Structure formats: C-alpha cells, structure tokens
C-alpha cells in the first residue's frame, strides 16, 4: 500500500464531518417544509447544500483532497463532461418540447 505519506483525519475529525453532513441534511429537509416561505430560493439553496455535501464526502471521506492531482483531474474531467453534455441535452429537450 502506498498510504505511508498521506495525511489522514482522525476518527474524531470524521465524526465531526458526519455531524456537519447531518446538519446539512436537516437544513435540506427544513427547506422542503418551509418552501412557501422561502419561495423561489428553495431550489438553488437545495442545490448548494447538495453540492456542499457532495464535496465534503468526496474530499474528505473519499480522500480526494489528499490525493495525487491526477486522480482529481479524472474525477473533475468526468464531472465536467457529464455536466456539460447533460446541460445541452436538457436544454435541447426543454426547447424542443415547448416549440
């Protein structure tokens, strides 16, 4: 194993991260219930929260923060490609169906 040089958060740190994730989830659920108050802000906020949880799990639990940049590039590359391709298809279908 080539784990020798890598930093590792301690178990306590991991539990703290998990608590943050739980709080974020609680906020998400709260947003769902208070949608009439929050209004149009709900969707973007939910997306921000989801992205936040995503980044936390990928960065710390999956260790990407501490990994070689090559791996980061693969992951980012896949994500960016997927996001762009699918944005194009969704926009195209949305436009296609309203014409």
């Amino acid at each position: 194993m080539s784990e020798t040089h890598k930093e590792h958060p301690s178990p306590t740190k991991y539990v703290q991260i998990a608590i943050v994730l739980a709080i974020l989830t609680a906020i998400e659920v709260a947003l769902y219930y208070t949608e009439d108050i929050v209004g149009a802000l709900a969707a973007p906020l939910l997306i921000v929260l989801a992205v936040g949880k995503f980044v936390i799990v990928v960065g710390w639990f999956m260790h990407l923060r501490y990994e070689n940049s090559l791996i980061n590039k693969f992951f980012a590359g896949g994500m960016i490609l997927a996001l762009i391709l699918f944005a194009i298809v969704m926009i195209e279908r949305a436009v296609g169906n309203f014409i």
Partner: protein
Amino acid sequence: MSDAHAYPHEPTGVETRKLGFWIFLSTEILFFGTLITTFLIFKGRDFPGIKLTDVYDIPFTSVSSFVLLMSSLTMVLAHNALETDDQEKTRVWLLATAMLGAVFLAGQIYEFTEFYHKGFELSTNIFSSTFYVLTGFHGLHVFIGVVLLLALWGVGQRQRGLSLNEGMNLEFIALYWHFVDIVWIVLFTVVYLI
C-alpha cells in the same frame, strides 16, 4: 506488476489499482449522470397521471438518507481502523456499514411497496419509469456494495484479520461505497426535494 526492481514503479506516483478504480468511478459519473438527466428531462413535463409528488413520504426518505450518510461515516472508520491495524474494530465497522446499507435498502423496498399500493408502478407512466429505474440502479449498486462489505467482513472473520493486500480491497470498497452515497446525496435533492 513484475520485477519491481527492473521496471520503474508507477511513473505517475499513484498506485496502479487505485488509478484504475478512480477511472472506473469517473465512468460511473457518466452512468448516473445519464439516468439523472433523463429523470430531470421529464420531471417538469405536463403529462397527465400520477406523479412522485402524489405518493412520496419525505420524513421517511429523510431518515433513509440519514442512514446512508452515516454508513459513510462507519465506512471511513473501518478504513481508519485498518490503517491503525485494529483488526477487531475494522470488522465491527465493516459490519456496521453493511447493516446500515441493508437498512437503507429495506427502507427503499418498503417505500416502493407503498408506492405500488398507491398506483405508482414501474410501467405506470414516464414519471414512474424514470423514478424507478434511477433509484433502482442506485439500489442495485447499494446491494452490490453490501455484498462486497459482507464478503470482506467474512474474509476478515475467517482469517482473523485482513492482510495488506486485502486492505487495498477495503480501500476500493470504501471508495465505491462513498460514491454510492454521493449519488444518493444528489438523488435525494433532485428527485425528492426540489
């Protein structure tokens, strides 16, 4: 691979199997990306018929989400335990992760059964088709993960400890498990909440 002394070792500095595994995970992004996109394309469409919003139960799914999220914690604790060579703790956390995964799956099955009773079936309409295939593939991935976790736990149990090589396997199973969790993070928001 062979003759480590004669051949240069990993010019990228990344362990070979880990590199391969991350490449696999990037392709899974395309896999789930396609499923999620398809779901989103149809989500807002004006088509008559029963929709997910007519049948879902957010409190229940929130608890399920929380369970899966916590299983990522137990997974990372299992990995940590192996790093510090605490074989007992490793097995405990592995089992905990598998159990939490199984609870999540049980929740999914219960949820789907309820939906079926309310008339929201796989072949009902496009909303149900996209929903079930998306969450179904996710569930299948969770199931495979649980099987892998139990297998590794079993190997550890039988051998009274995981060797260095099997430790690598734990790392990959952990990456896979976390990936399944982040897909759910996206799914929960995009399918249920928004």
